[in-house]
């Protein structure tokens, strides 16, 4: 289709050339003819906008197909499995690392719980021991206190008893001394003899 249009262009150019030669100056005629033939045979399709130049379409398509097919095969066979593998490996690695970290954390949590439980048990046991020791020593102290206070009370009672007997003895002596003293006083003051019975009665009356 394109070849036919090019041929049509060339035939019109050739038919027009004589008309140009007639109207233009004789000197310019070969020049005009020359440019016309140049555009036909030389650089093909000079006026066509290059991206729309269909004479290169076949070559463009062939080389695009070759290069793109190679590119697609190379990427899908070699590069993409490799990059995909790298990313997959990394994802797996991160997942296993996270799993391991979680497991280790659980282990440490368990160890911590066991430690705390043991600590609580030990505290309880220690508390028990301390309580027992305290109770024992308290009982012992109480017993000793009771014993000592009993001994003291006994001593106190003894002492009171001896004081009372001494006092009684002393009080018993007081009457006789008072009678003797009174007899002597009366003898000295009044002279003569004194009835012993009346003195004893007077002393008795004074002492009540």
């Amino acid at each position, binding site marked *: 289709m394109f070849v036919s249009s090019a041929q049509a262009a060339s035939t019109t150019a050739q038919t027009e050339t004589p008309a140009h030669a007639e109207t233009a100056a004789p000197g310019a005629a070969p020049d005009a003819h020359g440019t016309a033939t140049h555009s036909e045979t030389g650089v093909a399709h000079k006026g066509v*906008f*290059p*991206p*729309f*130049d269909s*004479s*290169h*379409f*076949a*070559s*463009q*398509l*062939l*080389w*695009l*197909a070759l*290069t*793109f097919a*190679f*590119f*697609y095969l*190379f*990427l*899908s066979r*070699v*590069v*993409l499995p*490799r*990059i*995909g*593998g*790298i*990313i997959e*490996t*990394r994802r797996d*690695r991160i997942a296993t690392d996270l799993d391991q970290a979680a497991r280790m954390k659980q282990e440490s949590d368990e160890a911590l719980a066991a430690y705390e439980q043991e600590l609580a048990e030990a505290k309880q046991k220690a508390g028990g021991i301390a309580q027992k020791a305290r109770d024992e020593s308290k009982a012992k102290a109480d017993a000793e206190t009771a014993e000592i206070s009993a001994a003291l009370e006994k001593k106190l009672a003894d002492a009171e008893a001896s004081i009372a007997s001494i006092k009684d003895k002393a009080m018993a002596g007081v009457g006789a001394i008072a009678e003797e003293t009174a007899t002597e006083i009366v003898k000295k003051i009044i002279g003569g003899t004194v009835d012993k019975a009346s003195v004893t009665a007077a002393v008795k009356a004074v002492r009540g």
Partner: protein
Amino acid sequence: MANDPIHQFQIARWIPIDVGGIDLSFTNSSFFMVATVAVASAFLYLTSSNRGLIPTRLQSVSEMAYEFVASTLRDSAGTAGMRFFPFVFSLFMFVLTANVLGLFPYFYTVTSQIIVTFALAILVIGTVLVYGFAKHGFKFLGVFVPSGVPAALLLLVVPIEIISFLSRPISLSVRLFANMLAGHITLKVFAGFVVSLGSLGALGIGGAILPLIMTVAITGLEFLVAFLQAYVFTVLACMYLNDAVHPGGH
């Protein structure tokens, strides 16, 4: 000729090959297709060759591209669409590398050729059609019947859906092609202003600063466009492939 903004798209035959009257020459465009594939392949291959558990910088670039395309495809076509991952990834890397390579001075931009982008778009739509019919048979035609539309409206909606389906390869290819073409022409025009104003003497050199700033700014913009268009192409390819996987899921 140096100032002609169209000249950069001219195809030059480097090794003429003619098979049965069909011109299959190895051209500058072919060379840059080979270069695109070589650069992208070498980058992806070499950066991933260490298989490091802790990636190097370049390895993480490759991995980011991988994860980026994978998540884009998974978001739009689901896990069932992941069978197209090598295809979509190849498309993305090819278009991206071709776009970026084209930004180097004197390099040829493969994606500024409508036939190249159209071939890639047809490849996408062809994959959708072939896979869709092979997998779902006539149920694949459910793509054209949106669910939840009253039967009376279907007469109107179905032709619209068919037209929109048919226009997909055109919009897909023209979007990429036009962006690359327009960007390169703009860049060339502004760069041309710098040269022509600079040759006008002292005043011209002063005046040339403005287009120079524009050229630098547009170059930055073009890098963004190069990535963005590769991304847009990939996202749309993913959405179209979704139709092949889930034809009823409109």
